[in-house]
């Protein structure tokens, strides 16, 4: 099962990085969303995939009797999903506001905070 997931993770990373390398903010934002999901899948896979064994400890035992699905990666991913979802929402609004204010979606033209026609400091009195 893990090799299949490894290929899937690679595919997600590839698509995400391709979109992030774009000059357009909206593609970068979408790329980051896919990149984040690639990371989530990676955590899931690195926790090893065990199917059809529920990780519930019987009442009279202290530990799991045998191999079972690993619940920890799922808890980690859940945290990461909540965080990345809220960040995605924030960055989407930010990108939209930037488009409204600056009027461009091309990062090469987003030079408001670092203007290209900046003066050099005076060389003398």
């Amino acid at each position: 099962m893990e090799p299949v997931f490894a290929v899937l993770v690679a595919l997600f990373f590839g698509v995400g990085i391709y979109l992030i390398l774009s000059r357009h903010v909206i593609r970068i934002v979408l790329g980051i969303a896919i990149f984040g999901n690639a990371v989530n899948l990676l955590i899931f896979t690195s926790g090893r995939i065990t199917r059809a064994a529920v990780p519930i400890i019987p009442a009279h035992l202290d530990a799991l009797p045998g191999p079972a699905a690993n619940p920890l990666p799922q808890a980690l991913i859940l945290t990461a999903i909540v965080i990345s979802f809220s960040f995605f929402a924030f960055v989407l609004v930010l990108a939209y506001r930037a488009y409204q204010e600056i009027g461009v979606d091309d990062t090469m033209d987003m030079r408001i905070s670092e203007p290209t026609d900046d003066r050099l400091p005076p060389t003398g009195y």
Partner: protein
Amino acid sequence: MLLEPVAAADWLVIAPVAIALGLGAFLLMLRHHLRWQAAFAFAGLLLMLVADALLLHRTLGEGPVTMTMGRWLPPFGISFVADTLGATFALIATFVALVCVLFSVADIDATGRRYGFYPFLMLMLAGVNGAFLTGDVFNLYVWFEVFLIASFGLLILGSERAQIDGAAKYAILNLLGTAFFLIGTAYLYGSFGTLNMADIATKAPDLRGVAPLTTIASLYLLAFAMKAAAFPLNFWLPASYHTPRLVTAALFGGLLTKIGVYALLRSLGMMFPLERVTLSGVIEWMAIATMMLGALGALAQTDIRRMAGFLVISGVGVMLAGPAIGSADAMSGTILYAVHSMLAMAALYLLAGAIGEAGGSYMLTDLGGLYRASPLLAAMTFLLVLAVAGLPPASGLWPKVMLAKASIDSGAGLLAGAVLASGFLTTIALGRVFLLAFWRDAPDAAVATRPPPVAYLAPIVVLIVPILLLGVLPERFVRISDIAASGLIDSTAYVRSVFPEAAR
């Protein structure tokens, strides 16, 4: 699987984070009572400062203090561990934030308060303190995200065009940085099956050769260098740090990049010391490039706020010298420099605010005549120029001496030369600010210069006191940073604090 209930005194470890989170939520409820916000934030930060100071006192006396959540046995429960390194950084960060609240009374207007400056500030401090005090890698990631999202809120307070432009770059690149942190953590969990830092430090020697530890260490270097704004991952910082209010910039420049440095020290210094040796060549070149390009960037700026951003970057380069060399002396120098940098960079941004208030502009082309307008401001600027450039009698001198000496001792002469050369370039860049803004007459006589209000000057004075103290009486500070560095390199005490029964 269960521990004894946590001893009452050990709740201190979580106190700074709990106070900050609770007060952040409380201030959110008080959002219509703008007058009370600053007072409550100040009181809360004062409490946090006391808690951090007590923590530091305890770690100096009895070594690292651990509290594991929910009475679960570590590594199953999430541990909070305060060692000297974490407690020192948390203390200084909280102190800087306290001073920034003083400054914010004058700098943040009613609109900024209504948009939630103080709740964001408290939540960011919760993230900062949490990052310094946690003993769990995934928990560290969560605290990174907590201070990151609060910093987004602070950065776009006011919604100006430049802010939105800067915030877009800051947000996207920092999100990528934390994503790389998470990739490293996924491989870490896949290899170790644990996320507890003490557990990882114990198990790493057995897993060398089996698990891809160098890959994990490289990913952490990438992620934390991005957070710390080290070259070539620094381009988000000069794009964004000059856009918000000066007090926000002071908080960012003072605190946030140092969390990256802290995480680098914790991961490469404590968890993966041998992998650090493998990567030391890369880190050395990053350090040299960062400090030189930061200083050169500062030389090319007309806007003093943007110049401060490049000086933050240059300082990060100096701090990378410690992980590049790795000896206890070098790590100690880096820790001391981080303490100096938190104080001095925050003071520098606040000073830029005071200069802007006094001269009516942030541009070196327009400033002038400030010496006559406010001799006190000139004296403070002069002291800060010395501090940032690393000249006596201010705080920058001793950590630079320690780092230069450690570099020469380990045969890295180039690194020592770069530390000194970047200090020289910084002296020129800041000396020129003094020359143009203070000594010459105002280029446009129509622009009235005036002494800045006391509300702008007093917080800077409060920051200059420890800066001078560190410069004039360094022994105590050096001793603490030596303890912090030795606790990092020899993690036995840290591990024993998390797993007390294993030592028996």
